[in-house]
């Protein structure tokens, strides 16, 4: 066969070495793919910021409401986080890095919470996220946070699902939940007030799950839920609900209503004098939602996790720090929402220091099972973070209105403090399926 034969030419072509151009193209493509591949895949997602070697500020995203139903509480928890951050910055920051807080309004809306979280992580390089009062918002943020492995300190939402079926490896829940408060309050209320209950429930995840926890205790102790009335968020007029309550004539009304809704409800109950006709239990009463309402409107028994006049070492100094840092605030003394915002932020920064790194998995391991003394928490009993559900187990207080106040703001009377082990949410660890460490993207900023 000569060289010019077609078959010879074809055989020559198939075995010929790749041309230089093709070789360069293949090499470049392989190099590019190798480089890009490092950024894909959920299992090991490494983000090493270009400036990590420098003292780049540590950015913390405050995903807190500044509008909507929980605007008042959102403002309070932001102050708590800011106070903790300032304390660390006054000592030189954390790991030699100054802490910068960035706040965006989550508008008491889950969709906005998602968008804010995504933006803070991907565009603003937030190392950690802190916040959320509304449980729907918390759930939305935590899904985004888990996707990127960003630690999310859920400061003030109280749906049992946050540390139950909606738990995540990156999320740590710092407030008591509906089950904790129901365990503390409901049984005692049945003994003192009666067995026929009506539930007034905010129509979203926290209300539903809190009502479910309350109902299970009522029915488990021989009581009866006569009716459950759902209250859509942002309800302003409760006249039809209150007329219905009068027709039903329950012994006790248990409310799982929060934010601006509970303010309107309390005022309208007082206008009818209904607080005298039946016993009222509010599962959890956040400080910004009653401050300034007037004595008549703070009726019933309710749960909380902290009060500014607890007779414990360190409390007065804590209150003084708040007043010095935030003079002239409309809310002159801090409450439970501020306390949660402060404690969550402080413990996060302490864990970063103890871990000696900003690697999220290392910090998560520091947080899980973390024990915090009563003195450190400014509460009556020691607290800890349950490694199975990532919820902070803490003292629960039962309170009512204080009709002998020592000063103008002394509006709560603490009736009892309950140890965390006595009010544990037993269902949370069963329902919570934390993602594995391997399934959680790892990062370091």
């Amino acid at each position, binding site marked *: 066969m000569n060289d010019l034969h077609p078959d010879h030419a074809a055989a020559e072509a198939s075995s010929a070495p790749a041309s230089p151009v093709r070789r360069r193209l293949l090499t470049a493509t392989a190099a590019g793919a190798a480089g890009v591949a490092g950024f894909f895949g959920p299992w090991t997602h490494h983000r090493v910021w270009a400036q990590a070697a420098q003292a780049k500020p540590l950015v913390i995203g405050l995903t807190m409401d500044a509008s909507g139903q929980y*605007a008042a509480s959102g403002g309070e928890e932001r102050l708590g986080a800011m106070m903790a951050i300032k304390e660390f910055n006054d000592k030189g920051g954390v790991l030699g890095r100054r802490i910068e807080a960035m706040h965006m309004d989550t508008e008491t809306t889950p969709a906005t919470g998602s968008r804010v979280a995504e933006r803070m992580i991907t565009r603003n390089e937030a190392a950690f996220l802190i916040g959320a009062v509304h449980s729907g918002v918390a759930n939305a943020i935590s899904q985004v946070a888990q996707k990127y492995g960003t630690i999310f300190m859920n400061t003030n939402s109280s749906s049992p699902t946050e540390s139950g079926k909606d738990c995540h490896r990156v999320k740590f829940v710092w407030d008591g939940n509906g089950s904790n408060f129901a365990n503390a309050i409901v049984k005692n209320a049945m003994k003192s007030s009666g067995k026929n209950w009506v539930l007034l429930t905010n129509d979203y995840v926290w209300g539903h799950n809190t009502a479910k926890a309350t109902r299970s205790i009522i029915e488990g102790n021989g009581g009866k839920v006569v009716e459950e009335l759902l209250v859509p968020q*942002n*309800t302003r007029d409760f006249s039809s609900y209150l007329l219905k309550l009068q027709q039903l004539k329950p012994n006790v009304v248990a409310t799982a209503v929060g934010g601006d809704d509970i303010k309107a409800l309390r005022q309208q109950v007082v*206008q009818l004098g209904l607080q005298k006709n039946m016993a009222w239990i509010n599962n959890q009463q956040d400080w910004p939602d009653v401050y300034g309402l007037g004595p008549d409107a703070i009726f019933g028994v309710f749960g909380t996790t902290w009060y500014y006049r607890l007779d414990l070492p360190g409390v007065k100094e804590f209150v003084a720090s708040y007043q010095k840092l935030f003079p002239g605030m409309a809310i002159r003394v801090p409450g439970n929402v501020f306390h949660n915002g402060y404690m969550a932020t402080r413990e996060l920064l302490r864990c970063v220091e103890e871990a000696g790194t900003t690697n999220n998995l290392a910090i998560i391991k520091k947080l899980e099972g973390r024990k915090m003394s009563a003195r450190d928490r400014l509460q009556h009993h020691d607290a800890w973070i349950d490694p199975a559900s990532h919820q902070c187990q803490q003292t629960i207080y039962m309170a009512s209105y204080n009709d002998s106040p020592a000063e103008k703001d002394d509006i709560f009377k603490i009736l009892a403090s309950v140890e965390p082990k006595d009010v544990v949410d037993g269902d949370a660890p069963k329902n919570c399926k934390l993602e594995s460490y391997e399934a959680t993207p790892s990062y370091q900023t």
Partner: protein
Amino acid sequence: MNALVNLLPHLVNGISLGLLFALIALGFMLIIGVMETINLAHGSLFALGMYAALFVAAPKFGWAPEWQVAYLALPIGTRYAIALFAAPVIVGVLGLLLELCLRRTYGRDPLYGLLLTFGAALVIEEGIRIVWGSNEQQLPLPAAISGAFMVGDLIYSKYRVFASLFAIVSIVGLWAFLEKTPYGAIIKAGAHDSEMVRALGINLGRLRAAVFALGVALAALAGVVMAPIWGIRPQVGVDAVVPAFLIIVLGGVGSLWGAVVAGLLVGLVVGFTGAFASEWSLMSMYLLFIAVVTFRARGLFGKKSVLDT
């Protein structure tokens, strides 16, 4: 029979609620009907009316303390009555300033007016926060209209009865002003044929300003009346402007009695669903709106302007 007896209190409650909704929508109706301008600042002006009433009824300022002490020594009933009339006047005057800004948008794309009033709503709300703060406040009430009374074995709020009666007086008063006074005739004529009104020598600019100020004053008046029921917060205006808009369109843009009937319907629907299908209570007004507008796009009493009240 028992069922009817159980329904009656909710019927009464629904009518009361409806009258209050109609009162909230009145100012919005007047401005949109006469000037064909959608005043998105209606809710913020409603909130401003609450704060103006608070300022008049329970002033707290550092200057002229002796005057303040003397004023606060007056019975709360007197101060509340002064607030009820002074707050709408104060806010109405501020409405004149807003109308001054709106003049450049007349005759242009309605979007300009919409955007301007939307911006004004944000400015007013933030202004309230700066001056009064973000916290909930209470408007003190005289004892005569506070508290409750019994009918059968049910308790009703005295203030709600007062508020409902006041709403009726306001609605009838506005109707009488528009129907029975020469000023009302001029307003209606201006809505119908502004060129003719101008040709007859009436200052159209002043007419529009007066109508706008009246609409704003009505928004503020509604705020004063609703303050003890909804509470005083900077963002409370949002709870007013959305139902007001819905009621105006449901009743027919520009129709006074349309707004009243629509308000009553909304009140009844919200009242009944609140009692018997509570999770639907907020949604119910929107479902009613969809149901009516689907079959009657102009609303129940759809008219072009306030000419036919």
